[in-house]
C-alpha cells in the first residue's frame, strides 16, 4: 500500500486551513499547512508534496512575487496546484493548474483533489 498522498495547503486564514485539512485527513490524506506563498515555496523544496491547494485571495498583497514563485516551483516539480478564488493573470500559465472560484462547495473540491491525485499516480506508474 503506497504512503498517503501529502497535500500542501497555502492559506492565510487559519479557519480555512483547518476546514480543508480536517476534510482531507478524513479521506486518509496527509496535510501540510503554510500561511502564504513565500513560506510555501520554501516548504515545497523540503517536503515534496503531491498536490498544492493555494488560496489566491487570502494574500494581503494580491499577485505578489510569492504567488509567482510558488507557481514556478510547482511547475518545475510538476506538482499539480489547485488555485482557490480569482488569481491574478501571472498565475494563469500554471503547469497543471486548476482554478476553483469562490465560494465553492467542499464536496466537489475534495473530489477534484482526489481525481488530480489519481491522475498523478497513474502518470507516475503507481
Amino acid at each position, binding site marked *: 500500500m503506497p504512503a498517503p498522498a501529502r497535500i500542501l495547503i497555502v492559506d*492565510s*486564514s487559519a*479557519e480555512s486551513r483547518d*476546514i480543508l485539512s*480536517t*476534510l482531507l485527513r478524513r479521506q486518509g490524506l496527509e496535510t501540510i499547512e503554510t500561511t502564504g506563498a513565500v513560506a510555501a515555496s520554501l516548504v515545497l523544496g523540503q517536503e515534496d508534496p503531491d498536490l498544492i491547494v493555494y488560496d489566491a485571495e487570502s494574500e*494581503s498583497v494580491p499577485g505578489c512575487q510569492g504567488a509567482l514563485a510558488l507557481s514556478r516551483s510547482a511547475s518545475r516539480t510538476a506538482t499539480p496546484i489547485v488555485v482557490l478564488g480569482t488569481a491574478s493573470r501571472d498565475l494563469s500559465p500554471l503547469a497543471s493548474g486548476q482554478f476553483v472560484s469562490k465560494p*465553492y462547495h467542499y464536496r466537489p473540491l475534495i473530489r477534484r483533489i482526489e481525481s488530480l491525485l489519481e491522475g498523478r499516480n497513474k502518470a507516475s506508474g503507481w
Partner: protein
Amino acid sequence: MASLFVIQGSDQGTRFLLDESVHSIGRTQNNSVRLHDTEISRVHAELVLHGNNYVLRDLGSSNGTYVNGQPATERELVSGDQIQLGKSLMLYTGFVEESHEDLADKVDIVAQAAQNDESRIVAALRHSEGSDWLLPEASDSSSPWIARARSNLQIMYRTALAVSHTMDIDQLLARIMEMIFEWVEADRGCIMLKDSNTGSLVPKVRRHRRGIRSDEKITISKTILDYVVDHQEGVLTSDARDDKRWDPAKSIVKLGVREAICVPMQGRYNVVGVIYIDTSITPQRMLMNDGKANRFTEEHLRLMIAIAHQAALAVEDTSYYKAMVQAERLAAVGQTIASLSHHIKNILQGVRGGSYLIELGLGDHDGVAGLGDHDDEKAKKAVDTIRKGWGIVERNQQRISSLVMDMLTFSKERQPEPKPSDLNEVAGEVAEIMQARAGELGVELCWLPAEEMPILMFDPEAMNSAILNVVTNALDACEDVESGKVTVRAEYDPADKVARLTIEDNGAGIAPGDLESIFNVFVSHKGGRGTGLGLPVSQKILEEHGGQILVESELGRGSRFILEFPANPQAEIRQEPAQSRPTIASADIPAGDLSDLSSH
C-alpha cells in the same frame, strides 16, 4: 523652445527639445529624436522648421505617421498636436510667444501704492450692480438706438450672470426663457435639449406670455428644427406666404401671421438643443401697423443666437460635471460592492465549511448508531466533527453580525444615543467576549480597568463596537507572534476630563506607509480577513463623541491605539436629554466594580 514629449511607448516620459531647423525621428542612433520602438522605421519622419512651427514629414515609413489620429504625410504642427509613430505617442509643444513670458515680472502687486502713484479708488461697484448702467434710462428715450443697444447689452450681461450663478440646468433654462420674454414681445417660447441617448429634442422649458392660452400646444415644424440643428444656424421665419407682397384681403390676414425665431444652442463641441420663440400678429395689428407687421427682426435673431450659445456652454459644463460625478459615484459603488461581496464570500465559505463538517459528523454519528454496536470512540469522533463545524458556523455568524453593525454605523443609519454609561463596564464586556478568540489564537488578553471611572455620557453600544474593532485588530496582529499579548487599559484623567482606552499589542505592527490609510474605508491590510470597515467605524464613533483615535506603531514590535474622548460626566450633561432619560446616580454603579471580570 519647441519640444516633443513622449506620452506613451517605451520612451514614455522623455522630452526631446527641438532646437535645430531639421530633426529626424527614427529607431536608429543617428536620429536626433530616437525612439526605442520596433514598429518605427529606422528613419521614420522628419521635423523641418517652417516659420514659427515645425512641419512633420513622413519619410516613407512602413507603419506610417499619424497626427491627432489622422494619417499624415506632411503637416504643419501646432501646439497640442499628438503624433503617433508605431506604438509611441508624442505631444508637440510649439514655440511660446514672447508676450506670454515673464508676465509675473511685468505686474507687481504691492501693499501700498507707490508714492508717485496717484491712483486711488474713485468708484466701487458690487459685482451684482455691474449691469445697472446697462439699464435704459428714461432720459435716453430720445435715442431709441442707444436704448435698444443698452437693452441688448443688458440681456447679454444678465444671461452671463444667470449662467455663472445657476448650477441647476432646468432652473437656468427657465431663467433664460424668462429674460427673453422680458426683452422681446414673444407669445410663446420653449427650450429643447438634445437627449444624450436618443439624440432627439426634448422640451425642457415652455412659456407663454400672459393672456395667451397656456394649454395651447406649441407646434414647431420639424423641417425648421432639422435645419437649425443640421446647419447650426438660427432662423427667423414667418408663415406669411410671401412676406413682401401679401394681400390684406387674403385669408392669411384673417388668421394673422405667425413669426418665429429658432436658434441652435451651439456649445463648444455640439449643438445641445434649440431655443424657439414665436409670436402671432393679429389682422387688426397688421392693418394698424400699415403692413409693417414684423415684430421679430434680425437683431433679435442675432441676440438670440448669442444667448443660446451662452446657455449651451452652461448645459455642456453641467452635463460634463454630472457625468463626472456620476462616474465617480458609480466607481465608489462598485468598490463598495466588490469589497462587501468579497468579505461576504469569505464568510459564506466559512459557513459552507462548517456546515459540511456538521453534515459529515451527523453522517458518521448515524453510521455508528446504525451499526448497533456502541463504538464510543467513533461516536465521540463524530460529535467532535459536529462540534468543530458548529464552532466555525458560529464564528462566521458573529462575523456577519459585526459586519452588519459596522455597515449600519458607517451608513449613518444608526445615530449615537448617549446615555449614562460606565466605560469600565463597556470595555470589560469587550475583553470578556474576546477572551475566547484570544485563546484560539494563543494570545494573552489583559484587561486593566480604571481605578476611578465616573459614569459618563456616551453611547455604550457604539463604544462597544469601536473598542471591539480595535481589540480584534490587535489580536489578529498577534496571530503569528510567539507569546502574543494584548493589553486593554482604561483610564480617566480628572484634570483634562478625558476618558482614555489604550489597546496595546506586541504583534506585527503597521508599516509606516500603511499608517496613513488605516482609517480609510475599504482599505484593509489584513488580507482576506478584513472588511476595511473596522477602523473607519471606530474612528467615526469616537469623532461622534468629540474624541479621536491616536495610533503609534512599529513594524515587528506592535501597535498602540489610544481611544480618547472628552469625559462628559453625567452630572454635567445638558439638561435637555437628561430630562427625557432615567437618571442613574453615579453611586448606584460603583466605578471599577467590574475589575473582577479582568482576566489576567
